[in-house]
């Protein structure tokens, strides 16, 4: 297997992008990544596109074929990868495997989703289609609902409190306010969403015990990256190559009800273990992480399941500022899904792009983890039934 480097990255601001089609967004982020990689007019061998919902939301299929044509990258191989909210992570993984195997040398990976052209009612239904079609979906369960049921159990078993969830929301929206790519660029206060008598109006129940500000927004957006063998990186660009040091992917039961312990995010735990083993690193070696905080509870639970904190300690660590910039392990410095947004097919790619910027030491001081060498991402599909983890490493030249 060959070492694989990320040599180019690109992203467009997430949010409500009424002016753009899904294809526009994928094309814009891809061109940024191709240019960042220094490819010029050179082609790529293959294109992988992470997308969950074009068939449902845009009544469009074969988005990878459309993208490779739009980018004039013909006759590159092209395919779309649908893996729920982990579509982006899966697309990156398939790109990495293709280069690592020696079959392709230069691969473009793009992830994108356009969710805001349907009503919230329809978008909620679209996301809920990932639940079990017989045992869950017909009842009206939503992903916030799944998270609400999980949160109730996690609070009981591991001592997470509403105040800990609020801290995650405040931290991630503070960081999002500094990120020009973030959907939500608005800071919130503890008084406004938790302490004030008016907080019930500002921050109403969404899926008890979760409230409005515990959830990520519904977003449009796209991100892309270019992969090549590490030993070929210097042929294309002077960018600091970022090594894909390891990845892991694991699955769990489709229904939450069939898990022996529904508070055990087994797929997160196993995906992270695989990635650490492959990278020959431990959680203590990670300097920055992008976790899949579609709901605030998930940032806390994932921080425990990947090994940054013991079970029951993740929420306390958040309260103590250990997950903030400058803390023991800065988490979601981009603002995470909570503030950068969650265009589902784009998220797994965007997480990797944000870690690449961190490891290149390319961000402004108020968002840069000083001297970061290793970073980790968790892209969480379904309600934890398909999870992709990456560990990236800066390669000093």
């Amino acid at each position: 297997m060959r070492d694989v480097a990320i040599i180019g990255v690109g992203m467009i601001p997430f949010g409500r992008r009424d002016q753009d089609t899904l294809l526009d967004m994928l094309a814009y982020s891809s061109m940024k990544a191709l240019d960042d990689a220094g490819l010029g007019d050179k082609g790529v061998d293959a294109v992988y596109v992470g997308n969950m919902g074009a068939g449902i939301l845009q009544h469009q299929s074969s988005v990878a074929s459309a993208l490779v044509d739009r980018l004039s990258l013909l006759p590159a191989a092209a395919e779309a990868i649908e893996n729920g909210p982990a579509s982006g992570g899966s697309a990156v993984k398939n790109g990495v495997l293709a280069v690592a195997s020696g079959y392709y040398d230069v691969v473009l990976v793009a992830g994108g989703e356009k969710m805001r052209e349907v009503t919230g009612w329809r978008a909620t239904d679209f996301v809920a289609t990932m639940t079990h079609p017989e045992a869950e979906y017909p009842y009206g369960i939503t992903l916030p609902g799944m998270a609400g049921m999980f949160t109730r159990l996690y609070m009981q078993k591991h001592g997470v409190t509403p105040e800990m969830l609020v801290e995650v929301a405040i931290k991630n929206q503070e960081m999002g306010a500094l990120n020009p790519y973030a959907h939500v660029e608005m800071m919130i206060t503890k008084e406004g969403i938790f302490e004030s008598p008016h907080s019930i109006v500002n921050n109403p129940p969404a899926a008890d015990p979760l409230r409005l500000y515990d959830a990520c927004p519904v977003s449009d957006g796209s991100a892309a990256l270019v992969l090549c063998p590490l030993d070929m990186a210097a042929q294309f660009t002077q960018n600091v190559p970022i090594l894909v040091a390891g990845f892991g992917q694991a699955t769990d039961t489709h229904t939450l009800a069939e898990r022996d312990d529904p508070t055990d995010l087994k797929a997160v735990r196993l995906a992270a273990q695989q990635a650490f083993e492959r990278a020959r690193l431990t959680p203590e070696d990670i300097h920055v992480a992008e976790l899949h905080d579609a709901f605030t509870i998930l940032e806390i639970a994932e921080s425990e399941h990947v090994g940054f904190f013991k079970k029951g300690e993740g929420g306390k660590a958040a309260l103590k500022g250990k997950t903030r910039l400058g803390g023991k392990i800065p988490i979601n410095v981009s603002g995470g899904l909570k503030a950068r947004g969650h265009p589902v097919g784009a998220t797994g790619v965007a997480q990797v792009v944000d870690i690449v910027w961190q490891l290149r030491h390319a961000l402004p001081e108020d968002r840069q983890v000083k001297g970061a060498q290793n970073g980790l991402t968790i892209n969480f599909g379904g309600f934890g039934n398909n999870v992709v983890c990456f560990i990236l490493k800066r390669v000093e030249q």
Partner: protein
Amino acid sequence: MTELKITAYKCKKCGRVHYPKHERCLSCKHREFEEIKPEGNATLLTFTQIFNLPWGFDERFLIIGVAQFENGVKAMGQIKAEDAADLQVGMTMQASWEPIRYIYGEPVYGLKFAPM
């Protein structure tokens, strides 16, 4: 008690109860199952009250939970309650088979749980 029209699958080798269907046992990979129905009352394992509903629901909110029947079948269902604050994990629930949603005016049936 109304008939609960879901079928669960009990592994003939290790006894693990599955719902929904799997081709092989999640625990021991055995391929033969006894088809069983949920029996008795159910214990509420977790629940939530959802205020942002998906397309197809006109209600102001839904309360949904997962409960375990006396013979081990675990399943999701809608909960008949006015407020999630009236519920507790561990409560005993009675299950019924009722319309859970309507699609183009036609009822879709499923599990409903009511606190006893």
